[in-house]
């Protein structure tokens, strides 16, 4: 689908500029997350002949979310290469191409479909370096969308990024801002390891300031998107704008929330989270995926291990309902955390609930 035609997720408000208090001084420009990602891919194709884009409908169709739109005319069909419907096949081919010296950027339409390629990613891409005693690294970048919010139902809407974060040998990131969408890719391409990039489908139309001169950013650190001292609110990807919106509302209730954008799902930057927690004494993780066995559990467990003695309450987890995402709008909305839910959970946690 071409997102120009999509219904915006009414809960994701454009708060990117808040990430850039210095926006005015730089020559930053406002861009959509989609355009920022396309700029990054274009730059990679232009700057390194070894880079190719591989995936279903990345050429003429422009990519299912229009991220690669036009790039095939700019760089040719050999470098922006349509593949047949064969997730396992083209991901495996991408792994081989990387071993052979190319730098493939592989697009999988959505994380639900990535299950068809999981064997290649887990049993080959993530293990090859180790099985070969350090001889064969696999420098691929795999991009895929994740998340619900467009009434696409149970086979197109899940959030399984936590599974990828479980796998040694992979690096996993989830850009939540246009700036990260623009500048995480070059770092990922320079990385000798397989890097998986999760793009929340609800973010593509979000606009944010992008510094064209910023340059590659790290793939390891979480970032405080909003400072606060009563509660540490951890989110990533599509939940970041919601967390920021919730923090705004909570401020009007005199609850000061520190919002942390995880950015990297593997490795986890527990230090940054723990540092925040040691002054807030309370933390909450909000994730769109299913609660049981979600990444939020790992974050809660690690934070508890690190900060047990400074915790005023157990780490709270707000997560998606344990249900295959339903089509009906009101049910889908109820199945994933909304701004109001974050506000409520946060207020209860800080004991401010009326």
């Amino acid at each position, binding site marked *: 689908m071409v997102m120009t035609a999509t219904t915006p997720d009414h809960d994701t408000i454009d708060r990117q500029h808040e990430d850039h208090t210095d926006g005015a001084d730089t020559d930053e420009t406002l861009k959509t997350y989609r355009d920022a990602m396309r700029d990054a891919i274009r730059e990679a194709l232009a700057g390194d002949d070894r880079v190719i884009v591989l995936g279903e409908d990345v050429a003429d169709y422009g990519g299912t979310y229009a991220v690669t739109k036009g790039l095939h005319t700019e760089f040719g069909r050999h470098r922006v290469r349509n593949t047949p419907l064969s997730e396992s096949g083209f991901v495996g081919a991408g792994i081989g191409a990387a071993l052979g010296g190319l730098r493939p950027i592989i697009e999988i339409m959505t994380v639900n*479909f990535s299950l068809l390629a999981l064997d290649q990613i887990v049993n080959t891409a993530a293990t090859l370096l180790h099985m070969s005693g350090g001889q064969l690294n696999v420098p691929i970048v795999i991009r895929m969308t994740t998340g619900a919010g467009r009434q696409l139902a149970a086979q197109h809407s899940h959030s399984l990024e936590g599974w990828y974060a479980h796998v040694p040998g992979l690096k996993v990131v989830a850009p939540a801002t246009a700036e990260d969408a623009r500048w995480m890719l070059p770092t990922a391409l320079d990385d000798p390891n397989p890097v998986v990039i999760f793009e929340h489908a609800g973010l593509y139309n979000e606009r944010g300031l992008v510094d064209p001169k910023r340059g590659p950013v790290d793939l390891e650190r979480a970032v405080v998107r909003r400072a606060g001292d009563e509660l540490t609110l951890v989110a990533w990807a599509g939940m970041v704008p919601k967390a920021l919106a919730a923090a705004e509302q909570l401020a009007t209730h005199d609850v000061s929330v520190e919002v942390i954008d995880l950015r990297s799902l593997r490795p986890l930057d527990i230090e940054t989270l723990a540092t925040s927690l040691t002054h807030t004494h309370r933390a909450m993780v909000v994730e769109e995926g299913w609660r049981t066995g979600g990444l939020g559990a790992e974050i809660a467990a690690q934070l508890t291990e690190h900060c047990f003695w400074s915790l005023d309450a157990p780490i709270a987890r707000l997560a998606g309902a*344990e249900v295959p995402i339903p089509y009906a709008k009101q049910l889908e909305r109820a199945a994933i955390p909304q701004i109001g839910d974050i506000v409520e959970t946060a207020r209860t946690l800080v004991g401010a609930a009326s």
Partner: protein
Amino acid sequence: MSDNLTVEQRLLADMIRVRVFEERCAELYGESRIRGFLHLYIGEEAVAAGVMSCLGPDDAVLATYREHGHALLRGVPAGSIMAEMFGRVTGCSGGRGGSMHLFDAERRFYGGNAIVGGHLPVAVGLALADQALDRDAVTACFFGEGAMAEGEFHEALNLAALWDAPVLFCCENNLYAMGTSLESSQSQVNLAVKAASYSVPAWQVDGMNVLDVRRSTERAVTAIRAGAGPIFIEFQTYRFRAHSMFDPDLYRDPDEIKTWKARDPILVCERHLREAGAVSEQEVAEMWTRARAETEEAVAEAEQGALEPESSLLEHVLAEKETMWS
């Protein structure tokens, strides 16, 4: 409309019903009354109409996310299909599936599957059960030519052939998988040749001619019931609309679309029947009128449907008891 139409008239009427129903869906999508993905079958109606006309109530049917026509012609009430797209409890999937996930267990209509290729192995299993339980049923599985590149197609055809599973593989070759043409998705563009490599009888049929579709399907279904094992038919057809409502359709040559529209299955069938004197102009007009009435009733009915309360969100995650078919 189980009235006194001849078989041929019925085929024409069925295609018209699907056409009218889907034209309306497109409008409703524009009005945001249908959301999510909406994939129209317009132009391909002869395939579902011809195939369905050869199946009985005990047979099983599986289709893709482009399945409004298949559901409608399988007998799923138009009102419950429309209600499903409106996300109402009265929808054929209780509003949980939407356009891509229409289901009707009683009519053995198994979706409504949106993982391309994913339902092919399932079809083989359904047929295996019919075979094992001595049910004289055929499982008709519809899928696009793009699905044939998926490993699940390969595994499913091999299993079906090894097990002599009574499956009719109905390939709807509309030449494109989203924006990817047949040539760029299949190294062997003769899909019947490809299917034959599994030792499965396979042939190509003009999917724009509903009578041809019916004739060849009848032959196939008869053979399968007689124990011939799986059969594959490539129906050569074309979608007149974009892949989905989100698709600007930049990858097809307008002339190509025009040429195919000249072969509109409804026009082809109507012309043929009129020339043969098998249907009158007024009977055809009547078909359109009835179809519009059916569709409007469906919309009205759908609007009556209640919205599932958020409180029942967690229903249907785990079953308490068996369903009729299992």
